[in-house]
């Protein structure tokens, strides 16, 4: 709220931030993979390996199943588009961009739901056993994860009295050092939902193909070439969105509020450091946890929902009072 720059510059910045978001998502995936390899004493691939994989996939020819409908071909673009729009809503380097003002967190959850719905449809479109199985599992997990995420979001919204992400971040930034039990619970719930939704261990294993327990991979088993590239890229963006959400909402320090070069550069450095730290935490979590049985997942997400609910209740009981 320091200064209101001319709309043209603000929109340009918003566009640049969105492009940066999309371009950096494979880098984050590469970083996670690299740290994980180091943790497990394996030779690590280059940081830029995900880019090479994407380029390779884009060059290949598409192989389509005979009974694939138009829906199957359209879904990768719909999914990728939904995640681009979602990425443009999340403040990465700077808060108060015009894109953040037109959509709030609930719309963000809506984008995720849209992408998931079409991906599940595509999984069933071909009619293979794996696709249907993956779709049904994905929807089961989603139907449990979404209420937990919304409940955590409502807790944040009650603290900051708004559902707008930029304003929530700014509220947390200016609140100073306030210990809030509700924020602690919301953070834990959001982290558990993020793990489940972005298909990481213990809910799903991102590193395996052709395993009976796979969820996300089962749905996209029939995709190839540029379609597969778009979907993989979209899921990398999804991971990044969750990481940035957690980093910027709970540790907003460093995010640029004024559109000056110095503030923006500092914001970029801050978010890079925060993301690097969060991915190290994710890798440690993935290394020490074992993948849980599919039938235990509802319990895991039920606990996430409970945490979010506790966040809301502690906010009402302890923090507002009378």
């Amino acid at each position, binding site marked *: 709220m320091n200064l209101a720059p001319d709309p043209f510059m603000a929109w340009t910045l918003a566009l640049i931030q969105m492009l940066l978001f999309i371009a950096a998502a494979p880098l984050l995936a590469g970083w996670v993979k690299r740290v994980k390899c180091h943790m497990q004493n394996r030779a690590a691939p280059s940081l830029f390996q995900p880019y090479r994989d994407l380029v390779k996939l884009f060059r290949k020819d598409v192989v389509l199943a005979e009974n694939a409908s138009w829906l199957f071909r359209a879904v990768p673009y719909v999914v990728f588009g939904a995640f681009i729009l979602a990425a443009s809503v999340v403040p990465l380097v700077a808060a108060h961009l015009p894109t953040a003002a037109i959509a709030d967190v609930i719309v963000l959850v809506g984008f995720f739901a849209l992408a998931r719905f079409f991906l599940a449809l595509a999984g069933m479109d071909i009619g293979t056993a794996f696709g249907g199985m993956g779709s049904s599992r994905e929807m089961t997990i989603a139907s449990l994860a979404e209420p937990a995420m919304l409940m955590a979001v409502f807790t944040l919204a009650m603290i900051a009295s708004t559902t707008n992400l930029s304003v929530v971040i700014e509220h947390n930034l200016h609140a100073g050092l306030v210990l809030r039990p509700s924020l602690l619970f919301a953070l834990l719930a959001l982290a558990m939902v993020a793990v489940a939704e972005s298909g990481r261990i213990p809910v799903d294993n991102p590193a395996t193909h052709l395993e009976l327990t796979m969820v996300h991979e089962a749905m996209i088993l029939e995709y190839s070439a540029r379609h597969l590239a778009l979907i993989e890229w979209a899921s990398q963006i999804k991971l990044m969105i969750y990481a940035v959400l957690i980093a910027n909402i709970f540790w907003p320090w460093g995010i640029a509020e004024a559109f000056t070069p110095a503030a923006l550069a500092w914001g970029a450095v801050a978010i890079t450091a925060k993301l690097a730290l969060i991915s190290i935490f994710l890798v440690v979590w993935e290394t020490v946890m074992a993948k849980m049985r599919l039938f235990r997942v509802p319990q895991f997400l039920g606990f996430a929902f*409970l945490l979010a609910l506790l966040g809301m209740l*502690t906010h009402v009981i302890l923090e507002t009072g009378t």
Partner: protein
Amino acid sequence: MNLANLSLFHQALLVAAALVLFTSFMMLATARIRPLIFAFAWQGALLAIVTALVALVSNHPHLYISALLTLGLKALLIPWMLHRLSTKLNILHEVEPIRHPSLMLVAGAMLVIFSYYVATPIVHLSTLVTRNTIAVSMAVILLGMLLMVSRSKAVAQVVGFMSIENGLFFAAVVSTYGMPMIVELGIAFDVLVAMVLFGVFFFQIRASIDSLDVDRMNRLSEKNE
């Protein structure tokens, strides 16, 4: 009451109180004996922290003694005794399947809302700095009861009972800044004696029905249905 206007210790007190509530839910969700005992020990430790912070915020130095007593008894001694008993009975790694785990957690959340509803009039009348945590302490008592009701193994029920006692102590600390020292010492030793008696009971129950599953006491006949 605006949270940002409170002192940092007061905020820490609220966080610790919320974590005590969280450990109650942890106990409700864990099926294994060992994590159950550890969650109980954490609850005791957090309760000691809450007591010490109440002493600091409300300026009642005698509560420091209560905090030390809580730490020694409920965070160290009783969990250690439970752990040793479970090792002796060879049930440390036993898993007790929880019936309707998600339903239990939702029921627990309902109990929290209920205790908030019950405590609201008290909160309106009270002028204590810790008045907001009264609802949390009542919820800890009710959650301990829920733990006792929902489990059939004797050790889990004892943990539930001890957790009810934790909740009562919590309520005493936050609603009246602790009981007179003599009462507090008396209760502490009562709890300790209860723990010793429970230990004897465990062996008795196991010797007579060959299991720690108290549901089996309902059956009178020797035959297995």
